[in-house]
């Protein structure tokens, strides 16, 4: 019984480090040590719970130990695919982990901290990522489709080829983040905060970007096709080669929508300018570049 409890505890402790050479070995050595320590404490008259708590205290900080093992086995740092599908991982510390092609599908990942992590190629399909921190995280080639990212933080995040389609980002914040070739189809970005970000070849098709402040940010080849942008502002923004296609709908919904964007002080290239003009956007204070 206690062996099982300790085993579960160790499995959870090592979970953020993924799979690496020597993992099972170190876990089994620790387990045998902890078992022995536990029974010594029990023999001294401690109750089960106290003995368990005292036992796990003797483990110490495993981060350095894992680093040591990875160094000595010359294994590529946590490089094997990790499978976290359908798991409850909320409140987990994933800071600075390198987990390429990890799978976090259909999982509860609320309140996790991915600061400084390299998650290249990982998938987060249909998971709950509310209040997660992705500051300085590398999300290259990551698929985050149909996930909840409400109140998540993306400061200095690398978003190259990142697919975040059909996800929710209510009150999420993006600061100094770089969107490059990112796909953001049908995303709900209402009340999201964008500050000092750059957008290159990003596709926002069918997204809800109502009321968002894109002031002073740079947009290169960004697609806002059939996007709702009413009330959003692009003050002093740089907009080059972007499309705001309204489609061939009978309703003038998307046309009217374009009239409610504030482009005050923006710098817009000629083609994009003419596009916006044909939709009746107010471009009176725009500089053509």
């Amino acid at each position, binding site marked *: 019984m206690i062996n099982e409890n300790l085993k579960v505890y160790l499995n959870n402790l090592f979970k953020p480090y993924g799979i690496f050479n020597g993992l099972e070995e*170190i876990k*089994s*050595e*620790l387990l*045998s*040590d*902890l078992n*022995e*320590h536990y029974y010594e404490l029990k023999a001294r008259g401690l109750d089960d719970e106290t003995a368990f708590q005292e036992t796990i205290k*003797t*483990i*110490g*900080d*495993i981060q*350095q*130990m894992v680093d*040591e*093992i990875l160094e*000595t086995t010359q294994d590529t740092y946590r490089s094997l695919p990790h499978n976290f599908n359908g798991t409850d991982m909320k409140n987990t510390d994933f800071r600075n982990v390198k987990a390429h092609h990890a799978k976090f599908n259909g999982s509860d990942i609320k309140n996790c901290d991915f600061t400084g992590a390299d998650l290249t190629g990982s998938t987060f399909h249909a998971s709950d990522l509310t209040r997660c921190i992705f500051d300085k995280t590398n999300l290259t080639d990551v698929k985050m489709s149909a996930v909840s990212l409400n109140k998540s933080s993306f400061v200095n995040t690398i978003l190259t080829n990142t697919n975040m389609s059909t996800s929710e980002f209510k009150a999420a914040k993006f600061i100094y983040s770089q969107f490059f070739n990112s796909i953001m189809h049908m995303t709900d970005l209402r009340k999201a905060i964008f500050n000092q970000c750059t957008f290159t070849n990003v596709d926002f098709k069918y997204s809800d970007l109502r009321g968002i402040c894109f002031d002073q940010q740079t947009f290169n080849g960004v697609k806002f096709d059939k996007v709702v942008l009413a009330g959003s502002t692009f003050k002093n923004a740089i907009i080059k080669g972007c499309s705001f296609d309204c489609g061939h709908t009978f309703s003038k919904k998307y046309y009217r929508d374009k009239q409610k964007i504030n482009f005050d002080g923006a710098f817009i290239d000629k083609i994009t300018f003419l596009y916006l003009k044909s939709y009746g956007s107010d471009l009176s204070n725009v500089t053509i570049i």
Partner: protein
Amino acid sequence: MYKKNISSDLLRGHVDTMILRLLSEGDKYGYEIVKCINKNSNSQYELKEATMYSAVRRLKNDDEIDWYWGDETQGGRRKYYKITEKGKNTYIINKNNWQYAKDILDKLL
């Protein structure tokens, strides 16, 4: 508490040598190493499992120690650690270095 943390930082730099010393007195498995350090320091220094296994992995990688499976009949088999000739030399060198540094520090601190 504060004092204890400072001293444990100082001590941590010598964990490898502590383990070499223990193993020079006889082969031991992981938990025995932790227990002996605790006992020999009159419980003044508690070596954590993770710190011990970091050191053990490092020592093994540098061929200072080796390991073999014990022949326990009951329960799981244990991994015993054993000092190598190289490890014995390293222990003597480290111990001399410490003595040398200690003499200087005693004069200076």
